[in-house]
């Protein structure tokens, strides 16, 4: 059974829908800015943070801004767009999947306006479920930084098993003191905007976003930019809980299994949307895994230079950008890159390039040793149909 990623949305510092995001990405505009918050980190820090007034102005049109947390507002705004576009019914046939690493963890802060109960992830699930009136209870996926992309694999598997016909996925995480101080305690935060795969990379930049997609097997719900899921896999490094494997074992195995399922040769793909967090160890690990897979020549980018690391949202957000890359036939610049700083060759995209694109690979890795790889293909049948319609 063919399963597609269809209608989509991104709510981020670069805009509140996919179109405004891709316009900014194509112009090379980054959402990362300098912030001063001595409460969190003594020195000024870089992060990609959504303007609170803009968020509230947009949310006010559909809901009460006082009733929902920052993350809920972002998620609801994002998912609302996809529900409006797709007009899919929210009955038993449609799963609601929410992916996040930390959810409303900021509710634990004694200064939060919300009760501490709001930090329970099933509470977040209920807020989203009841806002839209889903019949199904939310399936919350919390699997570190692969959560966003893993959710696509989960949706596809459940649809292929005929448990559901459609799945609406919303992924999101916010920039909180909890996250900033935690990564800072690991000395993993870059003093400058992050520089994935570069020689002078020193760490991550944190960002916040929500992204949503409709995953479906129903041909009535296929958008123009839809992609088919060819193969997917998620493998553990079985090596370390907070450091990536030196051999890229889990990522390599994830890619290998995804290609096996897709029944395509690795060298036939057009583009890799890498994880590329810009920590010294992560990017090196990815370069090793990519070369073990003999993908060193495939054009690759990390979108962290535009959005920062948006944690549980990143995998889904980057998939949506990858879909636009295929749809527009453009490879987008890997922002922040200067000189290659990994031990093995990776073909980092240095400037936007127009090129006929058909397939792409999305990868992600995270704490707990988890890795995920998913292969996507442009929905060509549909493109032919459109051309026929235009010609007649």
């Amino acid at each position, binding site marked *: 059974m063919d399963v597609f990623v269809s209608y989509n949305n991104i709510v981020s510092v670069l805009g509140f829908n996919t179109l405004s995001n891709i316009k900014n990405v194509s112009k090379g505009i980054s959402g990362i800015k300098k912030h001063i918050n001595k409460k969190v980190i003594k020195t000024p820090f870089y992060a990609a943070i959504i303007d609170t007034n803009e968020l509230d102005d947009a949310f006010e049109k559909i809901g009460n801004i006082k009733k929902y947390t920052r993350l809920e507002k972002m998620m609801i705004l994002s998912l609302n767009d996809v529900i409006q576009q797709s007009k899919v019914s929210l009955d038993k046939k449609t799963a609601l999947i929410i992916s996040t690493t930390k959810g409303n963890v900021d509710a634990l802060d004694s200064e939060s306006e919300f009760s501490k109960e709001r930090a329970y992830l099933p509470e977040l699930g209920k807020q989203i479920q009841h806002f839209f009136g889903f019949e199904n209870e939310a399936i919350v996926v919390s699997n570190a930084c692969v959560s966003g992309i893993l959710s696509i694999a989960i949706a596809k598997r459940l649809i292929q098993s*005929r448990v559901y016909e459609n799945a609406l996925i919303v992924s999101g995480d916010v920039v909180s003191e909890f996250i900033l101080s935690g990564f800072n305690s690991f000395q993993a935060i870059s003093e400058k905007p992050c520089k994935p795969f570069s020689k002078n990379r020193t760490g991550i930049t944190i960002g916040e976003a929500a992204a949503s997609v409709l995953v479906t097997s129903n041909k009535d719900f296929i958008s123009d930019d839809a992609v088919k899921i060819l193969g997917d896999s998620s493998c553990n490094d079985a090596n370390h809980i907070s450091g990536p494997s030196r051999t890229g074992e889990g990522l390599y195995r994830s890619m290998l299994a995804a290609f096996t399922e897709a029944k395509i040769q690795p060298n036939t793909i057009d583009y890799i949307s890498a994880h590329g967090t810009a920590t010294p160890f992560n990017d090196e690990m990815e370069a090793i895994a990519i070369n073990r897979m003999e993908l060193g020549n495939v054009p690759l980018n990390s979108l962290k230079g535009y959005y920062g690391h948006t944690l549980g949202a990143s995998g889904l957000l980057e998939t949506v950008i990858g879909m636009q890359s295929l749809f527009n036939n453009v490879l987008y610049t890997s922002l922040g890159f200067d000189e290659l700083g990994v031990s093995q060759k990776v073909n980092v995209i240095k400037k936007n390039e127009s090129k006929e694109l058909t397939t792409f690979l999305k990868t992600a890795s995270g704490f*707990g040793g*988890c890795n995920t790889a998913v292969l996507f293909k442009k929905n060509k049948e549909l493109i032919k149909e459109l051309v026929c319609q235009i010609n007649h």
Partner: protein
Amino acid sequence: MVDTAYHIKSFCHIKNNTVSLNGSIIYQNETKGFPEFIKTAYKAVETNYPKFFKMDNLSKLAFLAADILLKNEDLDTEIDNNIAIIFSNRSSSLDTDRKYQESIQNKESYYPSPAVFVYTLPNICIGEISIKHKLYSENSFFIFDSFNAQHLFAYTSSLLLTNKANEVLCGWVEFDDKQYEAFLYLVSKEGTIKHTTKEITKLYQLKLN
């Protein structure tokens, strides 16, 4: 959709100061508090793994339950054992999240620790189990309001039927404010209990004696 080719090969409960394997109690200790209980249980079941002591409560709970089941399998770690790990709970990693939040709440006593922060993700316990048993397999952590046998059954079946896993270690591992409960089971082609939502629910609710 209903798949009867797979079976529940073994299962383990850890709750109410009791550890049981396949419904029979293997350790009990009416001690005070989880930290002391899990330490004595660890010693009683002879899990010799010093890294255990640096884990947070959720990881200790999940690790011990998984170890009791996987120890029985006598896995050869030199070969690939494609056993997926699919866990779920209600409180994610909130027990450790609260501890971490305490460490950053007061600016006068500000001491964020990477050793605590790393456990503020529920799937870390899956990483711990994968490291010990050399499992390079599929893993996922789901959060539900309560034990969700339908979802575990559906997702586990999809992994098995598409050969993404040969066996699946799945279940519920919950730790919240001193309350704890682990129920893990191994789904395999072997075994006598049919892998169905009904059987999973029955085993989850099993009264131990």
